[in-house]
């Protein structure tokens, strides 16, 4: 009986061993090797709309622009990972990513709180990460040579919001709420600090992890009746908050950071969020190039691109350019060589021209203040641009 079972186990192991021979090994022998680009973003859960957009933006860029590399005989692939917007999942994925020697670039993440610990893992092997969406200062302020981003920073985005609130909206009192994440609290603190510098009164600064019942938080807001309410967080929390606040009779103007820049905001909150403002580092789809991207995206995936899909496209385009220049001699380049090459890329695309400084920030990034103009999620792309600023990233604080 026991011998019978051992034989069965051995047979199973043999079957597994055959099944697990990496497919890439079998295929790769024909060409000069495989180059893989990984994406990491939430593909499931409450923020999947934005995360999916990042994956598809990268996919579109790869399909369109990989020609030069395939001509040289490389096989270029995209491997999407789902970080579920959770730091622990992001780090676990990162460990799998660095174990796959073919992966030379990571495009990701959506959440700064996930990107920071995950990029510590990439750093171990000098694997390049280009972030399409992470705006927290610490992404680049750690000075890692392999970490770059194509979007703006919270210590600029916060003040852009403050500038808009103080100069354009001319508000006198502001109530600040944040979601207690690295991203939400970070941008809210930068917003508050700059607002106080400008002499606007911040009547309260509150954090909350609440997802459904905002009543007890809204009651004091309603009583204090501030000119503006700022929500530092992401749309899955901001949308019910704004909706319940309006239902409860809060008349203040609303402002938020790029985390609420998603069509899901109006899908959830409907009419309640029409007319609210948000700051974003994602370019509005008004330029000809952006329109072209939107059309291509819709043709390929059957839906409109979410914010940061364009940035993911740009990040992937930069990655491919760096890979081309690093792959001279027809050999698959090393990870470190790719990371170095990325910093040298000069790229002009739909989000403006991008050139990296020595921390990995774009030398000059554009920031936009947008206003929600319609309660139809399909028309999210038609939101009005209320203000635009091009600001250089601040130098590293010593």
């Amino acid at each position: 009986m026991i011998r019978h079972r051992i034989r069965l186990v051995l047979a199973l192991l043999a079957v597994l061993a055959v099944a697990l021979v990496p497919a890439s090994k079998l295929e790769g022998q024909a060409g000069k090797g495989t180059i893989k680009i990984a994406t990491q973003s939430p593909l499931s859960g409450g923020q999947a709309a934005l995360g999916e957009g990042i994956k598809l933006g990268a996919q579109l860029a790869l399909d369109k622009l990989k020609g030069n590399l395939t001509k040289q005989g490389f096989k270029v692939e995209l491997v999407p990972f789902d970080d579920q917007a959770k730091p622990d999942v992001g780090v676990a994925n990162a460990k799998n990513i660095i174990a796959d020697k073919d992966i030379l670039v990571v495009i990701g993440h959506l959440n700064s709180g996930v990107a920071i610990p995950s990029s510590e893992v990439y750093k171990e092997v000098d694997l390049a990460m280009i972030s399409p969406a992470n705006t927290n200062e610490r992404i680049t302020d750690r000075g890692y040579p392999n970490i770059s981003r194509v979007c703006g920073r919270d210590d600029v985005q916060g003040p852009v919001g403050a500038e808009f609130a103080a100069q354009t909206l001319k508000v006198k009192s502001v109530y600040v709420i944040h979601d207690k994440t690295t991203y939400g609290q970070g941008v809210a603190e930068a917003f508050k600090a700059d607002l106080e510098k400008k002499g606007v009164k911040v009547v309260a600064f509150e954090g909350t992890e609440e997802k459904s019942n905002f009543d007890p938080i809204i009651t004091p807001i309603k009583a204090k009746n501030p000119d503006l309410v700022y929500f530092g967080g992401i749309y899955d929390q901001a949308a019910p908050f704004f909706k319940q606040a309006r239902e409860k009779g809060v008349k203040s103007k609303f402002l938020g950071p790029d985390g609420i820049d998603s069509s899901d905001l109006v899908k959830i909150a409907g009419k309640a969020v029409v007319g609210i403002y948000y700051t974003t580092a994602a370019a509005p789809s008004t330029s000809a190039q952006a329109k072209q991207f939107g059309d291509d995206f819709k043709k390929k995936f059957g839906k409109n691109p979410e914010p940061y899909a364009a940035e993911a496209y740009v990040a992937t385009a930069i990655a491919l350019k760096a890979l081309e220049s690093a792959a001279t001699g027809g050999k698959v380049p090393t990870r470190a060589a790719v990371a170095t090459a990325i910093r040298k890329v000069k790229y002009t695309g739909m989000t403006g021209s991008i050139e990296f400084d020595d921390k990995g920030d774009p030398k000059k990034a554009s920031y936009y203040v947008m206003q929600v103009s319609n309660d139809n999620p399909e028309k999210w792309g038609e939101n009005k641009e209320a203000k635009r600023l091009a600001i250089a990233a601040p130098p590293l604080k010593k």
Partner: protein
Amino acid sequence: MCMDVALLVRIFPEVLLDGIILGFMYALIALGYTMVYGVLEFINFAHSEIFIVGAFVGVEILLGLKSVGLLDGLPWPIVLVLVLIAGMAASGLLAVTVERIAYRPLRNAPRLIPLISAIGISFFLQDLIRLVESLWRNAFNMVYPTIDVLNLRFELTETLDVSVKSLVVIVGAVLMLWALHLIVNRTKVGTAIRAVAEDQAAASLMGIDVNRIISLTFLIGGAMGGAAGVLFGVQYGLINPYSGFIPGLKAFTAAVLGGIGNIPGAMVGGLVLGLLEAFAASYLSLLTGGAFGAEYKDIFAFSVLILILIFRPKGLLGEVVRERA
């Protein structure tokens, strides 16, 4: 540090109302925990998902009515009752099924085994809802369609107004708690439930079909959870497959606070917890000048809870007295 006393006083009635609404919500969910505990001395951790299934069934029916144009066509009380009944039926039947599949085979196993089975069912249901909704609607967050009447607000005083849907939550919860009280204390079935809770062996010797009564307990507890789910969706507007977990945990706490196994206790516990939470969230930052904010509401509420349980380990109203040979 200056305190705005006038402001504190002015918002008091509104905070009280927020707390009462939240408290009734917890009370309705807590019934499912407490009834099952009363009968089986077992904590049904899957109840938070049974609750949220009610909310999902509710949103699907509302969306269905909307797509055929009946949402505005039918009078809103009928729509609401319809949705409530559907949510109650779905959650009640789910609870019975879960009991039949995952708990009954383990009835004579050590106490911890069905508990782990319940946690497993909880995870399983969360991801099952997620799977079904993503295949069916490709959605994670589900938004309750608005029924305009429910969003109307009555002005009670100059600073206090209340929406119709909040009244619906309160009235609905009170009616259901009352009905449950009648069923358990005034009917033959209720007597049988109490008999099984007291002594299963003796009850079965008296000719009570214990398995049927246990199924019935799950049916009633699940149905209350389903009703709470629909009311939760109507009140707060947004649900996702994981929305049930935190309210479920809080409701379980409320059940313990009131005295687990005790039906009026669940209501008292729910109200106390809801009020504590609402007051902590609204007042902490005002009282401490911003040093502690709304994010400490759970810490505050649970600290009070620990204090109460130190002095009244059996909960505010105490566990149902149980006689055993």
